[in-house]
């Protein structure tokens, strides 16, 4: 009994060790306005750094170019799931009305295509919408119950640029100087 309890405890410790996140390592600059953040991001991008991210309280326009981010692939998810929804909606109606149990309703054809359009359309939108939302949550790696919050005001009025120490071209002093020169009000090494 005591032995099995010890085993359970061991498994739990292992699981905890597995789930515990690696602490973030790198340099972070806090900015008070988006223009200098964009400048800093562009300079970091030009140093061939890939492992870096900006944190902003609202979508800052132009940050994608400054960081060298690619266009999101989500439209493809929407398009393909919309096609699946369209086929599923129409297929369900044709199969139930004309194949599984063809029932004569008011002398109308079994495949009453015009009457099937509204539900086909609704299924298209439903599938596409749910898949888009699901894909967004997945691609942003949400839900994340233990997020790294670098500064409590990043969802308020501050902006941050974080460069990870894991990047091969990471140079701590150079990057913290760069962030300071770009206008960061606070630069910290994590």
């Amino acid at each position: 009994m005591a032995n099995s309890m010890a085993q359970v405890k061991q498994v739990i410790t292992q699981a905890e060790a597995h789930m515990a996140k690696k602490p973030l390592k790198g340099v972070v600059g806090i900015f008070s306005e988006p223009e200098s953040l964009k400048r800093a991001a562009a300079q970091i991008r030009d140093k061939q750094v890939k492992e870096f991210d900006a944190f902003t309280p609202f979508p800052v326009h132009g940050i994608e170019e400054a960081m060298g981010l690619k266009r999101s692939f989500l439209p493809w998810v929407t398009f393909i799931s919309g096609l699946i929804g369209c086929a599923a909606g129409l297929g369900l109606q044709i199969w139930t009305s004309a194949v599984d149990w063809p029932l004569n309703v008011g002398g109308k054809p079994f495949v009453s295509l015009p009457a099937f359009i509204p539900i086909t359309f609704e299924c298209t939108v439903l599938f596409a919408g749910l898949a888009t939302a699901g894909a967004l949550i997945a691609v942003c790696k949400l839900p994340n119950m233990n997020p790294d919050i670098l500064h409590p005001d990043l969802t308020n009025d501050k902006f941050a640029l974080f460069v990870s120490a894991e990047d091969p071209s990471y140079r701590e002093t150079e990057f913290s100087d760069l962030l300071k020169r770009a206008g960061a009000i606070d630069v910290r090494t994590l």
Partner: protein
Amino acid sequence: MSTPEIILRNAAQLVKEPLIDPKKKYADVNNDVCAPLERLPNFAWWKAFGIANVCLLIGLTAMGLTIGTGIGQWGLNRTVGWAFDITNFVFWIGIGHAGTLISAILFLFRQKWRTSINRSAEAMTIFAVMTAGLFPLIHVGRQWMAFWLFPYPNQRDLWVNFRSPLLWDVFAVSTYFTISLVFWYIGLIPDIASVRDRAKNKIRKLIYGILSLGWTGSARAWNHYETAYMLLAGLSTPLVLSVHSIVSFDFAVSILPGWHTTIFPPYFVAGAIFSGFAMVVTLLVIARKVLGLESYIRLVHLENMNKIIMLTGMMVGYAYATEFFTAWYSANEYERFVFINRAFGPYGWSYWTMVTCNVLIPQLFWFKKIRRSLSIMFVISIFVNIGMWFERFVIIVTSLHRDFLPSSWSMYKPSIVEVGILIGSFGMFFTLFLLFCRVLPTIAMSEVKGVMHGEQHGTGEAGHHASGGAHG
């Protein structure tokens, strides 16, 4: 007046009115919008909540009576088989449409003024659709069998009739509710994260932490987020047009004179937007005052909505006229009779109430003073709501009560139980809305910050006053 003065005056007119009080900084947005969530509700809120709850209880009692004994509790009869209940259903679904119009269609048209009002309008959409959904559910009679409406494999091997507009409605309304909820929630995530980050209390931090899904505002996430938001807006736009079109098919696909017209889908959609905007104005005139959000929901927003009310009101009026013209031009005596009976028959009073509230009263919005007067727009918005409720009543009851055979003509009068359910629906709607105002940010903070004049100048220090609303 000298020439330079005239030039200056004309130039001043070119500067757009700022959408947000120019004195506000980014941090003020969070402080002001979150303040109502972080303090105890005031007496006015409790009073409103109490009244809404009493209305809801009246409704629950009336629904209990209906479910317990059956829809014989209502004033329906052999000729008028649809009346109050379906009127309320169409009314509430219509109310919801303005929320989607603001959140999706105005987004696609890049109307930046939507950012101050979209959150509360979307909440209104969701609560209105929930309220609307109650009515057909009660109307099916055996409510515990309502799941028969969905196509699911069953031991009777039977499928639903996909050719029926009533089934289209099931799909349209449930899709509309689902997508509106998803769209609303996606929009809420960054703002819930803001509430999480300013929470002082552990439990509060935990609850908003879970609801925010752990959003950090990463630019890589924003990149996908903005694309997803646009895609959802693009999906919601045809969806909202389809929903009220399909609701109108419930009538238009039948062969009843007064219902069987091709004009119904656009006419219903315009009416839905018309009534929905009126409800948004009703709610926001009160909410901006009670929540202290006058710097964000400004007269310019309300004025823009009043312009849309006037435009859609005229579209609805045009549809009323077209219906009469078509009835006359069709030379069909049943069609002609229905419309003459509609305006001059025993329910003529309801027709003229509708015309007065929907066509005549919104014409007052031609005057800028009236468009910007809080008290007058509040009264007009109530009139529009009354008028649009009557529109559905007129369409449904006057078309039904005198059909082809005079021997089966009859009159319809709502029973007290039906009135109770209508009161209850308002109770439910306002209860949900008042709770929303207490627990979630009523203004899309992350979107408002994006349209603030300070965007180019940071947290609002030097130099942004001069550029004023030029970015608005």
